[in-house]
């Protein structure tokens, strides 16, 4: 893939590397948190501030997203002793992480605040189940929903499957190839002490797990967990005083969509996803191309979603995603590992946050695996990727996160080591 030419100095490019992710925070990834989303959210926010080496009261901007299954910034801010100059609680799920980081940059660039914390708190297993079962599945169907839910077409897996199935038909993508996404991410998770599922799976394990919604087996679907995550963004010149090497934000595309994004697949090809359009914003804004990326975080709500995005952002040719994800490229030790934490399929489900958090850690060269701690408190990585071992990507400099909302909409972000 040739690098995009980078001679056009348009507005977004002045902001390249001007802002950075300086703090990341997580709770445990669990089922049965025994906490409110408010308690989870403030826990992650405190962790993120401690990680950045700032006081929680240094946070003066706050962003969050949810589908009415979280607690808003108005409660969180007080609980961490922050008086805000800006806040906004947005509606949305997957692909919001990168998009809201873009908004954070925008409001700081506008002079509205100085230090933005973004959080996503959810009891995705024990309260509002992300897989769509439980109370949400039994709600009455009205209005426009008669064209979807009335047909038993409601959960994310159900809504996306026509895209997945058509991809197999058009390109000969096999269940075995797609299963490799789970296999690889489970290998990564086995080297992540925080991951909810640390077990390594085989292709056979995936294909012999029960069918949920053909073409999806149980193990093609992500795990439902309870957790909160937080990310702190500020200007890079301020980041220099903070605890860790900053992850500089190179470029972002946010909630970029296909035509007709009402989930009725009127605009084709239906195997094309939002990334097809987002790539033309992402790569020129970042001044790099797919070949420059050392690790990806391609959203794995399902095995298929990682594959489809990697294709449409140009990491391989359209239709060759099955080959790409089963080639070894996406493995630790491969040319361009994907979701080194185990992602949504294994680590836990956060609507995209943990994949950005993982890449920040990777860019710090400080993945929290089981490698021994050195005298500076940082891990002395062995780069031995066997089960239970290291998950740090060697000499990593540039990452790409590819966020997925649905086949029609995606967001993306390139970061580099500061």
């Amino acid at each position, binding site marked *: 893939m040739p690098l995009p030419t980078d001679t056009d100095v348009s507005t977004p490019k002045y902001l390249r590397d001007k802002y950075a992710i300086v703090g990341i925070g997580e709770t445990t990834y669990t089922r049965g948190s025994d906490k409110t989303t408010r308690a989870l959210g403030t826990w992650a926010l405190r962790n993120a501030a401690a990680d950045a080496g700032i006081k929680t009261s240094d946070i003066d901007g706050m962003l969050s997203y949810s589908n009415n299954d979280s607690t808003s910034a108005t409660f969180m801010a007080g609980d961490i002793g922050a008086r805000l100059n800006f806040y906004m609680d947005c509606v949305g799920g997957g692909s919001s992480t990168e998009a809201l980081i873009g908004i954070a940059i925008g409001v700081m660039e506008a002079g509205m605040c100085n230090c933005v914390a973004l959080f996503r708190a959810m009891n995705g297993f024990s309260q509002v189940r992300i*897989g*769509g*079962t439980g109370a949400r*599945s*039994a709600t*009455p*169907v*009205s*209005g*426009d929903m*008669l*064209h*979807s*839910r*009335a*047909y*038993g*077409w*409601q*959960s994310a897996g*159900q809504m996306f*499957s*026509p*895209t997945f*199935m*058509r991809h*197999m*038909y058009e390109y000969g993508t*096999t*269940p075995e190839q797609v299963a490799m996404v789970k296999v690889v991410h489970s290998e990564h998770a086995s080297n992540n002490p925080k991951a909810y599922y640390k077990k390594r799976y085989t292709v056979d394990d995936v*294909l012999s797990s*029960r*069918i*949920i*919604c*053909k*073409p999806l087996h149980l193990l093609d679907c992500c795990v439902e967990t309870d957790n909160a995550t937080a990310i702190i963004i500020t200007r890079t010149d301020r980041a220099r005083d903070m605890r860790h090497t900053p992850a500089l934000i190179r470029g972002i595309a946010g909630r970029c969509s296909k*035509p*007709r994004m*009402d989930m*009725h*697949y*009127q*605009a*084709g*090809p*239906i195997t094309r996803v939002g990334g097809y359009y987002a790539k033309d914003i992402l790569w020129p804004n970042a001044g790099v191309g797919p070949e420059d990326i050392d690790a990806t975080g391609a959203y794995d709500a399902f095995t298929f979603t990682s594959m489809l995005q990697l294709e449409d952002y140009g990491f391989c040719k359209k239709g060759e995603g099955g080959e790409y994800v089963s080639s070894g490229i996406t493995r630790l030790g491969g040319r361009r590992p994907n979701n080194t934490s185990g992602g949504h399929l294994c680590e836990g489900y956060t609507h995209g946050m943990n994949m950005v958090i993982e890449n920040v850690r990777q860019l710090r060269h400080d993945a929290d695996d089981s490698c021994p701690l050195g005298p500076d408190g940082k891990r002395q990585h062995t780069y031995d990727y066997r089960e239970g071992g290291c998950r740090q990507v060697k000499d990593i400099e540039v990452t790409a996160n590819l966020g997925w909302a649905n086949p029609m909409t995606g967001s993306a972000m390139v970061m580099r080591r500061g």
Partner: protein
Amino acid sequence: MALQGNYLGMSLSIDDLDKENITYFKHCAEHDFHLQKCDDCGLLRYPPTTGCPWCASPRATWTAVEGKGEVHSYEEVHHAIQPAFKSHTPYMVLLVDLDSQKGQPSEHEALRVVGNLTTADGALAPPDMVRQVGIGTRVRMVFSDVGDGLSLPQWTIDTGAKQHPKPWRYPQE
């Protein structure tokens, strides 16, 4: 007036402010399939909207459309999440390219109409029928009556059409 229905124990309703959906389903209740046809650019659209996706015109005329087409993609739900469907698995959701306006206004566009695979009477298809259908199957529209003045368009195998000898199905049965 608002429409109310009950389908497999699931409550369905359309508010009386929602004139587009009310009109669409009123035609369905008469087992007629009508779509909005743009008064300005002449293109049909699905599902009902308040404006033309291609030219943004708010002016449209409800127009009869033939309920025939070909399965563009599908899924087969084995683990239902909605209580209404739990005792009907596996059920199939079909995305059907209507013959009308296929490939217009651009190559990969079509009026893709969703529906379950049903019998000719509009009842969810039994498993042996599900196994006959895949990408490429020719289907025709039928209706499930779910309330007074409310019917859902559905798809059944078009036995009168020339069928592909082996429609494409997911490799694992």
